[in-house]
C-alpha cells in the first residue's frame, strides 16, 4: 500500500476571514507579515460571504513537478510534501501554469515562486487558526501504521453500500489483531456475514454470535477462563444499539459492574436496522423509523435517546468513549486506550454510526454526516478514564454548527417541523451542559 501523508484541511464554514493564517505563513517564512509572502490565501465571496482557499494540496500526481523543466520540484516520499529547491529553480514559472490550485505562486517581492512546505510538519497556519477552520490532519499515520496490517475481515461481505459498520470492523480488527475473540450479536454486524453463513466465516479471528441479550456475559466467561489459564486474549464485542442499550443492557450492565475485561463497542445506528429500521432506545427524538412513523398524527419518535455512554461511565467502567468514523485518528487513539483498559476492566466505546439505508441518505454522504454529527454537538466526542477519574472532550464542543446542518442531510429527519428542530437543538445543548459539568470538575481538580 502506498504511503499516506498528513494534510491541512480547510472547513470554510468555520472561517471568518481574519487572515491570521496568512500573516502567520508570511511571518514564519520570511519574518514579515506582508501577504505577498504568504503561501496560503483565503478569498471571500462578497456575495454569499463564504470563503475559499488557495493552498498547495501536496498532490499525489503533482502537475507542477511534471511540468518543471529544472527538476526543482519533487515529492518528498517521507512527508509527501512537494518540495521546491531554490538552487535548481530557473524561475520559468511553468509550475504556476501547471498548478490549477494556485498552490505555487509567483512572489513579486522576491521575484521567485513560492509554495507551502507544511512548515516541516508543524504548519503555522493551522496552529494560529483559532476557529478550527484550518486543521493539520495527521490521520494518515494511521493508514501508514495499520494499513499494511492484515485485514481480519474478508472482502465481499454483504454489507449495504456505504456501511459504517464494515468500516469500523475492518479498522478495529486491524488495530486489535488476531489474538482476539469477537462477539457479534444479532444485528447488522452479524447480518453482513461476520460470523458467516452456512459454514463459511467472514472473520479471521474466533468469532461467534452471542444472543442479542448476552454478549457481555459470554465474553466475560471466556475471558475469565483465559485469565485462569494465563492467556491474554482480548474480548471484543461489536454490539448494535438494540443489543447494547435495549435487550442486552442487563448483561452489559452486570459485566460492567463486575469489571469484566473486554472491549465493548456499540455501533449505534440508532435503531434496529437489520430487521428493517425499527425504533430502539437510542433512536433520537423526532427520527422516523418504521415503528415511529410519520403520518398525520405521529411525527417520528417522541422520546430522546438513552444516553448510553454516560450510563456506562456511571458504571465505573475502566474506560468509556464516544467516537465517530469521521474522526478516525481520535478513534484509533481511543482504541489504544481501550485495549489497555480492557486488561483490567471494561472498555466501552460508543460509535456514532450513520446508516445510509435506515437513515435515508446517499452512501457517499456517510463520513460527512458522521462529521456533521460531531460538529453540531449532536454526538460530542469525549472520553472517560477511570484510572485518575479523567473526563475530557476530544473534539471542541464550543462554537457548534447549527443542528440543521446535520439534520438536513438525513432523510429520517426530513419531516421535522420548527418545534421539533428546536427541541433537538435544546437537547443537544442540555446534554453538552451536563457533560461539561464532568469536564469542568476535571479542570477544577487539575488546577
Amino acid at each position, binding site marked *: 500500500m502506498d504511503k499516506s501523508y498528513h494534510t491541512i484541511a480547510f472547513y470554510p464554514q468555520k472561517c471568518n476571514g481574519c487572515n491570521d493564517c496568512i500573516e502567520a505563513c508570511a511571518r514564519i517564512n520570511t519574518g514579515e507579515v506582508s501577504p505577498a509572502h504568504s503561501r496560503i490565501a483565503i478569498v471571500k465571496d462578497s456575495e454569499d460571504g463564504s470563503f475559499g482557499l488557495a493552498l498547495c494540496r501536496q498532490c499525489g500526481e503533482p502537475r507542477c513537478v511534471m511540468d518543471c523543466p529544472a527538476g526543482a520540484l519533487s515529492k518528498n516520499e517521507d512527508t509527501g510534501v512537494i518540495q521546491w529547491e531554490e538552487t535548481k529553480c530557473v524561475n520559468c514559472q511553468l509550475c504556476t501554469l501547471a498548478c490549477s490550485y494556485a498552490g505555487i505562486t509567483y512572489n513579486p517581492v522576491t521575484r521567485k515562486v513560492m509554495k507551502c512546505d507544511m512548515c516541516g510538519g508543524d504548519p503555522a497556519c493551522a496552529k494560529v487558526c483559532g476557529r478550527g477552520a484550518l486543521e493539520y490532519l495527521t490521520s494518515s499515520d494511521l493508514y501508514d501504521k495499520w494499513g499494511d496490517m492484515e485485514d481480519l475481515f474478508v472482502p465481499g461481505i454483504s454489507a449495504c453500500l456505504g456501511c459504517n459498520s464494515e468500516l469500523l470492523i475492518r479498522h478495529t480488527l486491524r488495530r486489535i489483531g488476531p489474538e482476539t475473540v469477537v462477539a457479534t450479536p444479532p444485528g447488522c454486524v452479524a447480518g453482513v456475514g461476520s460470523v458467516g453463513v452456512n459454514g463459511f466465516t467472514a472473520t479471521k479471528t*474466533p468469532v461467534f454470535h452471542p444472543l442479542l441479550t448476552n454478549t457481555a456475559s459470554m465474553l*466475560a*466467561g*471466556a475471558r475469565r*477462563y483465559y485469565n485462569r489459564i494465563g492467556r491474554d486474549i482480548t474480548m471484543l464485542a461489536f454490539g448494535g444499539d438494540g443489543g447494547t442499550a435495549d435487550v442486552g443492557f*442487563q*448483561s452489559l450492565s*452486570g459485566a460492567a459492574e463486575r469489571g469484566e475485561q473486554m472491549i465493548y463497542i456499540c455501533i449505534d445506528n440508532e435503531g434496529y436496522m437489520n430487521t428493517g429500521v425499527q425504533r430502539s432506545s437510542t433512536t433520537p427524538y423526532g427520527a422516523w423509523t418504521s415503528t415511529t412513523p410519520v403520518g398525520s398524527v405521529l411525527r417520528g419518535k417522541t422520546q430522546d435517546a438513552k444516553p448510553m455512554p454516560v450510563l456506562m461511565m456511571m458504571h465505573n467502567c475502566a474506560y468509556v468513549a464516544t467516537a465517530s468514523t469521521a474522526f478516525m485518528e481520535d478513534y484509533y487513539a481511543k482504541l489504544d486506550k481501550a485495549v489497555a483498559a480492557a486488561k483490567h476492566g471494561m472498555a466501552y466505546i460508543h460509535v456514532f454510526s450513520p446508516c445510509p439505508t435506515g437513515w435515508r441518505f446517499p452512501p457517499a454522504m456517510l463520513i460527512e454526516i458522521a462529521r456533521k454529527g460531531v460538529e453540531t454537538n449532536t454526538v460530542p466526542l469525549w472520553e472517560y478514564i477511570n484510572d485518575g477519574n479523567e473526563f475530557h472532550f476530544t473534539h471542541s464542543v464550543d462554537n457548534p454548527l447549527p443542528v440543521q446542518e446535520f439534520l438536513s442531510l438525513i432523510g429520517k429527519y426530513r419531516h421535522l417541523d420548527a418545534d421539533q428542530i428546536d427541541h433537538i437543538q435544546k437537547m443537544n445543548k442540555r446534554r453538552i451542559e451536563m457533560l461539561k459539568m464532568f469536564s469542568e470538575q476535571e479542570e477544577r481538580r487539575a488546577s
Partner: protein
Amino acid sequence: MSKTIVCDGNEAAAWGVVKARPDMVAVYPITPQSSLAEYISQFVADGLIEADLMDVEGEHSVLSVLQGACLAGARTFTATCGQGLAFMFEPYFRTPPLRLPIVMSLVTRDGISPQCVWGGQQDAMTVREVGWIQMYCETNQEILDTIIMAYKIAEHRDVMLPTNVCHDGNYQSYGVEQVEIPDQGDVDAFLGEKNTNWHVALDPDRPMGVDPLTGGAAASGASLFVRYRKGTCKGMQNALRVIAEVHEEWGRKIGRHYSPLVEEYRLDDADYAIVTIGGMTGAGKDAVDMAREAGEKVGLIKVKTFRPYPLQAMLQAVSKVKAVGIVDRSVSFGWNAGPVYQEVLSTLYHRKERIPAVSFIGGLAGADITEDHFSQIIETTARTLRDEIPEGPIWINE
C-alpha cells in the same frame, strides 16, 4: 480418603461439584436452590473449589458466562430452578446444539402462577425437549455421585451435551441424609482428562466462526442445519449407552451402584407396578414393601434418566407387568396428564398386548407424596387389573 457426613441435598450436590473440580461456577440465588449457591460460594471461599466464582446479575447471564467459558475450554457448573430456569431459557435453549458439556443442578420447583416457591418438577419437565440430558436422583448420595458422573457423561466424545442433575426442591434440597464423600484421587482417576471444547472453540489458536447463520432457501443451508440437528439427536442416543457405562464404572471404582436409566424394584414377579421419578421414590418403595407384605404382587419402576428417554430399559421393565400407575410431580397441560405418564404410554405401544396405565399427579407446590398416598396409588393401579380404570388423571393432595 472418602469421608462420611450428614447433609442436605443441596450440600451433597455442592460436594459433588467440589470433587469434579470445575474451572468456573456461576451462581444466582433462587429458592430452593439458593443454599446450593451459597455452599458453592463458601467452598470457593474456603478453597475447596478452586474455581472462578461468577456471581452475575441473573440466570440468563449465569448460563451465558458458562457458555463463554466452556467455549474457551472450561469445565463449568451452575444450578437453578423455576423462574430462574425460565429466565435462563434463551441461552439454555442453545446450549445443547452448541454441544457444550455444561453441568447444572435443577433443584426442581413448581412453576408460577399461582405464586409458589416450593418443590415440584414442572420446571424440569417443561424443558424436557430442549436437548439437555436429565437425570433425577432419589437420595442425597445419588445427587452427589450423579453430579460427578454427569461430567463424565456430558464430556464424553460421543455425547458432548449439557446435563441437568435434578433433585426435588424442599424435599431433597433441605432433607438431611448421611452421605459419603468420595476420595478426590478416586474421582480424578474416574473423570480423567477434561476436554470441553475440542469440537467448538473460541480460541485464537484455532480460529473459527462459532454458530454461523445456517439454513435458508439455499438447499445446502437447510441440509447443513439438518446435519447439525441429527448430530445432536445422535449424541442424545449415544448418551443412553454412555450413561450406562459411566454408572457401571462408578460402581466398579467407587463401590456404589445405581441403575443408570431405569431401576426395577421388586419387579421380576410383579403383576403390576408403579412408576416414580426423583425423591418420591423412597416413599414409593416403602409402600411397595408394605403391599408386598400384604401379598400384593406389586413392583416399582424408578426413572433415573428421563432425557434421553430410556425406551428400551423402560420397555423391558413395563413388559414384566400387566398394569402400571405412573406418578408425576408436574403436569402436561396439553394432555391433562403427567408427562412421565405420556412417555410410558408411548413405550407401551411397543408391547404386543395393551395393558392399563393410570396417571397420578402429586407433590405439586412442595406437597409431600406420603406412603399412604402411594398405598392408594398401588390400590388404584391394582384395581385396573380388574378393569376398574379411572377417567383422567388422579390428583393427589387435592
